[in-house]
């Protein structure tokens, strides 16, 4: 599972040193109707060549946390606190100009909806070339030449011919490749991919995920993959952080977490997904709906939907699910989960 970390990929930092450290990140949106707590204290780190998947459903805060790292949230209404250290420097306290220097060569991002992320009135070659013109002061001609090279690298057929085409002339998969070309143009150390294949068909999704993995192997960049798709996480990522209501509720290697969940939410997700390889019995969904981020339940945010919750006298002292917030704690070697009764969840699905 850690094979990509031991790959002889090109390295630029001291081995083992995390590229990115997110510490106690909070994001809230102050609105007239109240405060929406989108991200509530998440911490993680990412090393070179590592692929970390952030798994969660809509409204879990997974995209907002990534936008906070990129510094593309509008402040206000968003309020970001905590620390985001890129190579040891806190991006939240940096000047806007320094932040801009990090975005592009340091961290870059691709989005779910490639069509609305591209400018319809400029050719794709111009938009890819903009990275070189703005960040490196390249001439138009140089920028276009490099754009063609990049389009080749992301396997867009007949790149030299298509460089002057506009976004609407590309298919969904090809547009996402254009986005990837822009994101890797300045050889970033970290690529954040926010649901990169959600809008794509499965056959195209497989092509795009393969491309991302190949690019990562070539460059040794760290990859943060934000998705709700358990299958994509399993096939692409080394480690996974499961988010619920703005918190990380479980973290570990994909093998560990997906083989034997340590949080009832992860367990519920695994039981909700039908299998491809067998018809399977009745699905076991999680009851209820994900919480409203303006009114997150007290205690463990998952307790209203949890089949394993212990309330009142059933609970151990200090571990009452509706009043005591469970911390993200070590529950097994290399495994963290934010559940008071994680030990009872572990081992249930053991294969």
């Amino acid at each position, binding site marked *: 599972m850690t094979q990509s970390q031991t790959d002889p990929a090109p390295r630029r930092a001291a081995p083992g040193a995390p590229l990115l450290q997110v510490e106690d990140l909070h994001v809230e949106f102050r609105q007239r*109707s109240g405060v929406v707590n989108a991200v509530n204290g998440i911490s993680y780190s990412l090393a070179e060549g590592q692929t970390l998947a952030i798994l969660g*459903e*809509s409204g879990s805060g997974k995209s907002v946390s990534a936008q906070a790292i990129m510094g593309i949230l509008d402040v206000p209404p968003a309020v970001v606190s905590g620390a985001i250290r890129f190579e040891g420097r806190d991006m939240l306290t940096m000047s806007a100009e320094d932040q801009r220097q990090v975005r592009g060569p340091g961290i870059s991002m691709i989005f779910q909806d490639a069509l609305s992320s591209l400018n319809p009135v400029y050719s794709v070659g111009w938009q890819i070339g903009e990275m070189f013109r703005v960040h490196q002061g390249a001439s138009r001609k140089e920028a276009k030449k490099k754009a063609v090279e990049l389009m080749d690298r992301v396997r867009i*057929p007949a790149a030299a011919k298509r460089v002057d085409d506009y976004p609407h002339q590309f*298919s*969904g*998969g*090809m547009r996402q490749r254009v986005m990837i070309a822009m994101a890797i143009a300045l050889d970033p150390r970290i690529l954040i991919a926010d649901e990169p294949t959600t809008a794509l*068909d*499965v*056959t*195209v*999704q*497989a*092509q795009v*995920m*393969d491309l991302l993995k190949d690019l990562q192997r070539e460059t040794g960049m760290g990859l943060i993959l934000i998705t*709700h*798709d*358990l*299958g*994509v*996480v*399993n*096939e*692409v990522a080394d480690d996974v952080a499961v988010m619920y209501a703005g918190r990380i509720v479980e973290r570990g290697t*994909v*093998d560990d977490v*997906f*083989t034997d969940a340590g949080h009832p939410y992860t367990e*519920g*997700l*695994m*039981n*909700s*997904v*039908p*299998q*491809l*390889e*067998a*018809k*399977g019995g*009745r*699905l*076991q*969904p*999680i*009851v*209820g*709906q*994900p*919480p*409203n981020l*303006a*009114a997150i339940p007290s205690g463990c945010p998952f307790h*209203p939907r949890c089949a394993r919750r212990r309330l009142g006298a059933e609970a151990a002292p200090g571990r009452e699910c509706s009043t005591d917030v469970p911390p993200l704690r070590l529950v097994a070697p290399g495994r963290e989960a934010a559940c008071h009764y994680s030990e009872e969840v572990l081992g249930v699905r053991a*294969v």
Partner: protein
Amino acid sequence: MSEPSESSRPTGATAASAASAAPDSASARGPLGETLLEIRGLQKHFPLTQGVLFKRTIGHVRAVDGVNMTLRRGETVGLVGESGCGKSTVSKLLVALEKPTGGSILYKGKDLAAMSGRALKEYRREVQIIFQDPYSSLNPRMTVGDIVAEGWSVHSDVAPRKDRLKRTQELLDRVGLNPDYVNRYPHQFSGGQRQRIGIARALALRPEVIVCDEPVSALDVSVQAQVVNLLEDLQDEFGLSYLFIAHDLSVVRHISDRVSVMYLGSIVEEGTDEQVYATPSHPYTQALLSSVPLHEPHLRGQKDRILLQGDVPSPADPPSGCRFRTRCWKAQDICATEAPALVDRGQGHPAACHFAEARAVVPVDVD
């Protein structure tokens, strides 16, 4: 914003009465297995026009081009395919929102194209649809109660006027919504709850067939499973037949008795879920199945990887012969000249490929 929370099961007190509210129970209908819908050579071509004042037709988009399918009472037929393959056009043709260019839809032996007046009205009541997007398919200015009851203003014989409120509440209860929410508006509900409203609306007219056009694609995984279970329960209770259209191959396998795979306007393979998933015989089905990421770590890397090159050709200018030949690794000269028929070539179920050959792509879960 208030977010009403719901359990997925009806409350015990009203569950019994709900059964009498919605469609007749299965026993009151015809025998299970009886053919309800038969689609033969169905075609829908949309004209491509040029010019503003004087429109000239410069070609046709062959959205649906020769689809054959059969739907029997009480069964679920899955229709899978990628975006643009024409599966949603099939659903619109089935509920008579579009008129076919060619071919026929036979419902209980009668041709839909020949229906008019009372027969067409009855067909439209008996064949209902659930749409993909629970956000845009519900009128934001109507209350949930009005949305569910709207069909009765046309089909007034289904529910006597004085019973309508009670029936609406029973329907809401049956689909797992609080019956007290009849006066709420769609924006007060989450995506999964809205999809339940859409299901209650379809059930209100006591349909025989429900066309489910990507009913769970817009929902989160945990909520998706709730809706899939609800659809299965309703089918058992009311003897409904589903045409389940989706691009998620795992969900389709889970819910379907038989599966048809569609590519660029026509069916390339059909069979039981076991036949299509365990022994896919058309290269496209094989590629499609091999692209689905599996979520079990112990199955990782055990799949037969087939990466398709290129994109789906335009349905305005489909390739000659076999539609899939431009992306197929088996293509030979005959594929460009002769369109393969959807027949069994010895692999146990029909596939539209000259070189059809069963090949296990998905690993078998041994534990």
